[in-house]
């Protein structure tokens, strides 16, 4: 590599940025924008993903060229280069194996695990920059780090550490290694606010005094606050948490981008930061919860369960069998299927799609209605249905399909509960009041697949739909019920 020393000489951090390298980083930033833009429709999405890969390749190759490891005499340090390539190789193997093996139901855990890695990588980079500031071009000859860089670095390590420990807790809760129930420490708001204030104060103090104790205390406190912030948040609010941590991982990358004066990192950080923030907002709106109340935690805990348990009365409901359901649906013109996370837990999505195929053969018009919080993360239910080969143009979002329930002959609810509960519209005392719901009650017949009459949804509230005249409760395991309906449909000889 003859050109290497020239490039290496030109890339000296803030002061002397190689213009070609700067343009290359800008190009990779633009490719990342196009990657997200591609997701506006499934048809263009795979091309978008390729743009993302191209952008990443450009960023990595540019950095390897401008910052190749050099020996004392100025040549390329081939051992150092091999070490870097081995590190990339190890990451590539682990990453690809994880991506291939993961079950689609476990996507939220995988995303949380990935977030934790971004956070930890940001911490490692910020710590490396702190230990060797000259290499990053952020210090003068005496080793004094520039004031602006200290703020950027302090924020980078704080956000990175919060992302890491928060994501680890989110992962443990989503993966079932830790109970989804909120853990409420006494005086936690005081502890949290105090810790946050201490972090902000120490980052400010860091601009006057760059001693190691300041830097490492900020790091330690940030790990702690990430942990404290997530433990009181219950399982039902995990979609918001995962989105929020997505946002943080972006801001961490942006903070490091400021430290390095790197446009690719800043553009990406801003994109990812806004993306996570918007997804959190969409999730909060879909549950009619404020972001603050989610962060404050405690939802889905004892309070909600106690409120619902006190007023439980026996009301009459109509049981039904798979044969009844098969008959009703085969006679219908329009059937809308409302899947929820319970369907995914029972692994019923393939059986459900077979059921829909049978119905379509009989000339029934089948559509799927998805509530924004139907899965464990934004868009989760769509992925699970796509995996079961449900065409995406049969799957509709709440706003697009809600008006159609009035024309539907059958609403088939499987593994969902709270998102169909009319109490969200009528009962001001209900914990889910104000949450937008799928209006299944407007359909001529409601078939409600549920494990038993005893259990309640995440929010711990009873659902009036169970007791309506036009509702038939299909009690049993979601997968077995769907399988039995398929059998009944194919056996009916139509």
């Amino acid at each position, binding site marked *: 590599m003859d050109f290497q020393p020239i490039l290496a000489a030109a890339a000296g951090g803030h002061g002397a940025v190689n213009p070609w390298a700067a343009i290359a980083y800008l190009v990779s930033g633009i490719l990342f924008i196009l990657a997200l833009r591609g997701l506006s429709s499934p048809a263009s999405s795979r091309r978008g993903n390729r743009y993302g890969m191209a952008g990443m390749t450009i960023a990595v190759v540019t950095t390897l060229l401008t910052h190749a490891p050099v020996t004392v005499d100025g040549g390329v340090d081939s051992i150092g280069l091999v070490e870097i390539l081995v590190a990339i190789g190890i990451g590539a193997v682990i990453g690809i194996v994880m991506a291939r093996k993961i079950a689609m139901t476990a996507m939220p855990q995988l995303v949380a695990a990935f977030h934790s890695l971004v956070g930890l990588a940001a911490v*490692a980079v910020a710590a490396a920059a702190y*230990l060797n500031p000259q290499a990053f071009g952020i210090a003068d000859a005496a080793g004094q780090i520039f004031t602006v860089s200290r703020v950027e670095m302090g924020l980078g390590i704080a956000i990175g550490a919060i992302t890491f420990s928060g994501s680890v807790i989110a992962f443990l809760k989503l993966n079932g290694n830790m109970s989804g129930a909120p853990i409420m420490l006494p005086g936690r708001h005081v502890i949290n606010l105090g810790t946050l204030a201490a972090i902000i104060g120490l980052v400010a103090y860091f601009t006057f005094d760059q001693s190691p104790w300041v830097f490492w205390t900020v790091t330690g406190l940030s790990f702690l606050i990430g942990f404290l912030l997530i433990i009181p948040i219950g399982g039902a609010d995990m979609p918001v948490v995962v989105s929020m941590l997505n946002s943080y991982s972006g801001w961490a990358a942006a903070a490091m981008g400021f430290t390095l004066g790197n446009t690719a990192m800043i553009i990406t950080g801003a994109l990812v930061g806004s993306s996570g923030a918007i997804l959190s907002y969409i999730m909060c709106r879909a549950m009619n919860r404020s972001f603050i109340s989610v962060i404050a935690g405690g939802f889905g805990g004892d309070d909600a369960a106690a409120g619902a348990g006190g007023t439980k009365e026996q009301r009459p409901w109509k049981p039904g069998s798979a044969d009844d359901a098969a008959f009703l649906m085969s006679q219908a013109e329009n059937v809308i299927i409302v899947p929820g996370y319970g369907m995914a837990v029972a692994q019923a999505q393939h059986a459900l799609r077979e059921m829909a195929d049978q119905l379509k053969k009989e000339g029934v018009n089948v559509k799927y209605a998805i509530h924004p919080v139907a899965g464990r993360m934004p868009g989760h239910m769509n992925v699970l249905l796509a995996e079961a080969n449900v065409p995406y143009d049969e799957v509709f979002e709440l706003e697009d399909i809600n008006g159609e329930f009035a024309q539907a002959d059958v609403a088939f609810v499987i593994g969902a509960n709270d998102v169909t509960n009319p109490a969200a519209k009528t009962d001001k005392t209900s914990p889910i009041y104000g949450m937008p719901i799928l209006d299944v009650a407007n359909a001529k017949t409601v078939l409600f697949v549920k494990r038993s009459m005893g259990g309640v949804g995440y929010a711990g509230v009873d659902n009036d739909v169970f007791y309506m005249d036009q509702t038939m409760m299909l009690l049993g395991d979601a997968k077995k019920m769907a399988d039995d309906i398929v059998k009944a449909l194919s056996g009916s000889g139509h």
Partner: protein
Amino acid sequence: MDFIAIFSIFVLACFVGYFVVWSVTPALHTPLMSVTNAISSVIIVGALIASAAAGSASSKWLGLAAVVMASINIFGGFAVTERMLAMYKKKER
């Protein structure tokens, strides 16, 4: 680059992000999260600089560790996104 120039890029990129993300169809919100995961690992740029720099052994090893972590994310994130996107099919007519 001076701080104001970088900050301007950041603010404009936030606006771009806002509009681009609202245009993403809700059906693809999970792939959106996995791909943003992959691209936020562009932090590997900082990791590569740290691992290539002379002068501090601990800084270099932290850099290499960050290279491994960011690479897991980059390859894993793009691969799992690709896997999910390949499953989205239109109705056969």
